[in-house]
């Protein structure tokens, strides 16, 4: 999907920069498993990126009102 977030091209160095921006010191030994996990997450989320969500409001709190 054009413009969709992609984690496939991220590098270990990118993670350190992103971590610093988030105020997080990512330990050296976490970089490879984190890259692997982020790429897995990104591949999983690609299904959602394909949806047309124009005009759809987000669920920000659960509302059980539909029972009534």
């Amino acid at each position, binding site marked *: 999907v054009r413009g969709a977030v992609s984690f496939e091209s991220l590098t270990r160095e990118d993670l350190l920069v992103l971590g610093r921006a988030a105020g997080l010191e990512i330990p050296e030994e976490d970089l490879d498993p984190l890259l692997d*996990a982020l790429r897995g997450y990104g591949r999983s989320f690609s*299904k959602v990126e394909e949806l047309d*969500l124009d005009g759809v409001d987000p*669920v920000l709190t659960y509302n*059980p009102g*539909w029972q009534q």
Partner: protein
Amino acid sequence: MSALWDLSVAQASGMLDHREVSARELLAATLERIEETEPQLCAYQHLMAESAQQEACQADKEIAQRGQWRGPLHGIPICVKDLVFTHDAPTEGGSQVLAGFVPFRDANVVRRLRDGGAVITGKTVTSAFGFGPTPRPTRNAWDQRYDAGGSSAGSGVAVAAGSAYGAVGTDAGGSIRHPAALNGVVGLKPTCGLVGRTGALAMSASLDVVGPITRTALDCALMLSVMAGYDPLDPQSLPSPDIRYDASIDKGVDGLRIGLEIDHFVDPTRPANGPETAERVARSLSELGATVVTLSIPEANLIEPIHHATIWPDTSAYHRRWLREQPRDYDQHSRVMLEVGELIPAAQYVTAQRARRVLCDAIRSAFVGNRLDALVTPGWGPATPVSTGPVKMFEVGMRPVVFNLTGMPAVSVPGGFNADGLPMAFELSGRPFDEQTILRIAHSYLQANPGNRRFPDVPIANWKPGLHPS
């Protein structure tokens, strides 16, 4: 004569009421069973034998004086997941991050259980904070070479093995229903907002629930009757009337409309839990008088990515301070998952919540359009052999987490055994706040299929008491 530890809550409560047994005798049988099975199963993190003895003595005194009966859990030994606060025993969440932490008060649900006269036997093993490895090697009650499920691993195993009559679990992504399914017991994820969550360590405000794990659907209804109620400190909690969830449990399924969705609910990564169990259950319910409607909800294919994009940012937000101040107190797997949550873009989180709306609307339309009272879908399990390898979190199917995303009630119900003798399970979900109907259906099915009510043959060991004192 059966051993006392293998009674159901309903049976034990009836015997207490008729003075055929005392709370102290029930507790003694439970503690003896814990001694026998704990070396193999590792279900408990902290045993609370001393305070439990005091609670059992108190219950016996009160029951002896007519008019002081507190309800169906009075004098019944119940265990609590180690993510749920107890003022008189540590709540460590299965992690070094909270090593030695003793909360200054009970969780809302523990207070309700104690007010209802339950005897708290101890804290049960949880995956670290609900998503990491377990601090003790908890094993499946049916075969110790197999996984116990999680994250309420100890709660599911303890109930299955007879080392508690019922248990408290928490569920943000199947954590009550998964261990219940893998250990052949009943696990209920209540409607979000029905059971107060104050004092339960959080993963996600919109996904977390607290609920019961028991051996029968009737016991689940009895526990829920005590656990449910408004919690003023939980913003998600909703006022609800005092309901006895067992009141209509014997009414059968005649006249009920029950949906069956298999195509999009079979775990694509665990085909062993194929359609057979759910189809067999649907046939049984049809024979019992229900109308079964086969339907298709293709939006279910979105479940896992929406759940991932919701739960990890939510969980990371709760751990934000600890992750920065005590990063080395986390195991690496847990730390990496929290780092993932920190790096998921906010716009993607909101996109996931918009897709969640599509999914919720699809499920609601299936219920309303087909006038359904409940939905049968494949459950978790069967258990897989214990693995020490890395978990590929984003490559594992997790279809039952849909009911965390929609907030609906869902119960995992035993559905027979596979060729290896391991429990199979199915899920029954219902309309919000209609726990009564799904427990009634589960009860009808289990009554008509009594082969599901078996106990695992846990090898007995010589164990020295006091290994895990509170």
